[in-house]
C-alpha cells in the first residue's frame, strides 16, 4: 500500500478498452472508475456485459488493449507475471461457481495459498484453516472433497479461501448466482461480516439487485463479543456502498443507491424495473 488515508483508490480504471482475441468487438469500451479503500463497490449488469472481464483485469489475468489500470496506486499494465504476484498477494478473489480445486480437499483448498507461499508448521496451518472454516460456518467439512458440497457450501469455501491470506481487497464474481434466496442471503451476510469486522474493501459483481441492496444496507457490529446484524432502510443514509452499472461494455451509471433510484438512464431504469415491482410503470 503506497499512500495513506481514505483518499487512496484501491482500484482505478482510466479509459480502459479490452477485447478478447478472436472477437470482433471490444468487450470493454472506455471504462473509467475509482474504488476507495474501505468502501464496497457493487457492479451491476446483465450477463455478458463485461463484469467478470473487469475483475480479471484487476487481477492482471488479462491485459487491457489501452487505458490504465492501477491497483493500490500502482499501474499494473507494464508489470510482468512475477511482479503481478505481489499485487495479487493483496487481493482475494471469489470466482463465479467457486472454482475450487477438485483434486484437493476443502482444507487444502482453503489453505492453498498458505501452503504454496508461507510454509507454516502443520499444527498452525490446521488451526488457521479451522478458524477460517469456522468463520464461514463449515468447520465439519475440513477433510471433505469439494465435489461433495452443495452450491452454497462451495461458495462459502471459496470465500474462506479468498480471505485466508488477509487480503485488503476481495473481489466477488456473482457470489449468489444460482443459489436459492436463503442461501444467497447467507453469502451476503458473509460479505458484510468480512467487510465490517475485517475492514476488507469489497467489489461485488452481481445481476441480482436484492443481494446488492442487502450488502449495501446491512452492517454488523460486535456487541460483547456477539455479532449483531443491522439493516438500514433509509437509502439517503448509505454512504459506504457505490454502484456501477455496466451495459455492453460501457458504464452507464456510477453513484450511490439513492442516485440509482433517481437515475434517468434508460438501461438503469429497465434493470430496476425488471427486479423491483415498485419501479414498474
Amino acid at each position: 500500500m503506497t499512500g495513506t488515508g481514505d483518499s487512496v483508490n484501491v482500484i482505478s480504471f482510466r479509459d480502459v478498452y479490452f477485447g478478447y482475441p478472436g472477437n470482433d468487438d471490444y468487450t470493454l469500451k472506455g471504462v473509467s472508475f475509482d474504488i476507495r479503500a474501505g468502501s464496497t463497490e457493487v457492479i451491476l449488469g446483465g450477463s455478458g456485459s463485461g463484469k467478470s472481464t473487469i475483475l480479471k483485469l484487476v487481477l492482471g489475468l488479462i491485459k487491457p488493449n489501452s487505458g490504465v489500470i492501477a491497483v493500490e496506486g500502482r499501474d499494473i499494465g507494464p508489470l510482468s507475471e512475477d511482479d503481478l504476484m505481489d499485487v495479487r498477494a493483496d487481493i482475494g478473489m471469489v470466482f463465479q461457481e467457486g472454482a475450487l480445486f477438485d483434486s484437493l480437499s476443502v482444507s487444502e483448498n482453503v489453505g492453498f495459498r498458505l501452503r504454496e507461499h508461507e510454509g507454516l508448521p502443520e499444527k498452525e496451518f490446521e488451526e488457521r484453516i479451522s478458524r477460517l472454516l469456522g468463520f464461514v460456518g463449515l468447520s465439519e467439512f475440513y477433510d471433505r472433497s469439494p465435489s461433495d458440497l452443495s452450491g452454497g457450501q462451495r461458495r462459502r469455501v471459496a470465500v474462506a479461501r479468498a480471505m485466508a491470506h488477509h487480503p485488503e481487497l476481495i473481489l466477488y464474481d456473482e457470489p449468489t448466482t444460482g443459489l436459492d434466496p436463503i442461501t444467497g442471503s447467507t453469502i451476503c451476510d458473509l460479505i458484510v461480516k468480512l467487510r465490517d469486522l475485517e475492514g476488507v474493501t469489497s467489489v461485488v459483481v452481481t445481476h441480482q439487485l436484492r443481494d446488492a441492496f442487502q450488502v449495501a444496507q446491512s452492517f454488523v457490529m460486535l456487541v460483547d463479543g456477539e455479532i449483531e446484524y443491522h439493516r438500514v432502510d433509509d437509502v439517503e443514509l448509505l454512504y459506504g456502498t457505490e454502484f456501477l452499472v455496466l451495459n455492453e461494455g460501457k458504464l452507464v451509471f456510477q453513484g450511490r443507491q439513492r442516485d440509482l433510484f433517481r437515475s434517468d438512464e434508460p438501461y438503469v431504469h429497465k434493470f430496476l424495473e425488471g427486479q423491483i415491482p415498485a419501479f414498474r410503470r
Partner: protein
Amino acid sequence: MIDAISERVKSGLRSLQDYWSISYGAAVSLASRPRYWRETLDQMDFIGVGSLTIVTLTGLFTGMVLTVQSSATLDAFGARPYVGRMVSLSMLRELGPVLTALMVTGRVGSGMAAELGSMVVTQQIDALRSFGTDPLRKLVAPRLIAGVVMVPALTVLSDAVGMIGGYLVARFTLRLGTGLYWHSSLDAIKMHDIFMGLIKPFVFGFIIVSVGCYQGLTTTGGTRGVGESTTSSVVVGSVLILASDYFLNLLILRFVYP
C-alpha cells in the same frame, strides 16, 4: 478465398506460438524453484503404473504376432532360427516405442487434456494464477518430467514383454529351441539399437504430454470444448508421433548407425 487462407495461416501460427510458449515456459520453469516433486511423483504414478496393463498387453501380442508373421517369411528362405533376431530388432527399434507411445497417448494425453481443459472452463487455472501460482510450473512441468521418464520406461517393458511373447510362440508353436531363440535375439542387439530404442520414447513422451497440456490449457467453449480438446489431443498426438518417428529414423540412421 485468399482471406480465408490467410486467416487459417494466422490462426495456425497463433496455435504454434501458444504451443511453443506453453512447452518452453514449462521447461524453463524447471530451472528455478519452486519445483513440485510431489506432483511429479503423482504424475509418474499416473503415467507409469497406470499404463502397465495396456502396455504389457500391447507388447505381448505384438511380439506374438510378429513371430507368427515373420516365421512364415523366414521359412521361405529356410531361416526360421533367425526369428528371434527379427522380433527383438523390430520391437526395440520401431514397434515397442511407437505402439507404447500410441497407447499412452490414448490414455494419458487425453486424460491430461480433459483434466486441464475442465480446470480452464471452471476457472481453476485463473484461480491458480490469482493465488500467485504459475500453472506451467505446477501443472505442466511435473507432467513433462513424468512423461519423458515414464514413456521410455514403459517402452523398455513393452520391448521385453514383446520378446517374451515372441519366445512363447517360437517355443510352443514353431518348436524352436529356447537357446536358439534367445541367442539370436539378444546377439542381434547393438548399442545403437538401444540408443534408438530409448531416444524415440523420450521424444514421444515429450510430444504426448506437451500436446495433451496444450490442448487442455487452450480449451474454450465450456464442457463441449473439453470434449473437443480431448479428441484433438489423441489425434494430433498420434499423428505427431508417427511423423516424428519417421524423421527420427532418418536422423538416427544418418548420424548414429555406422
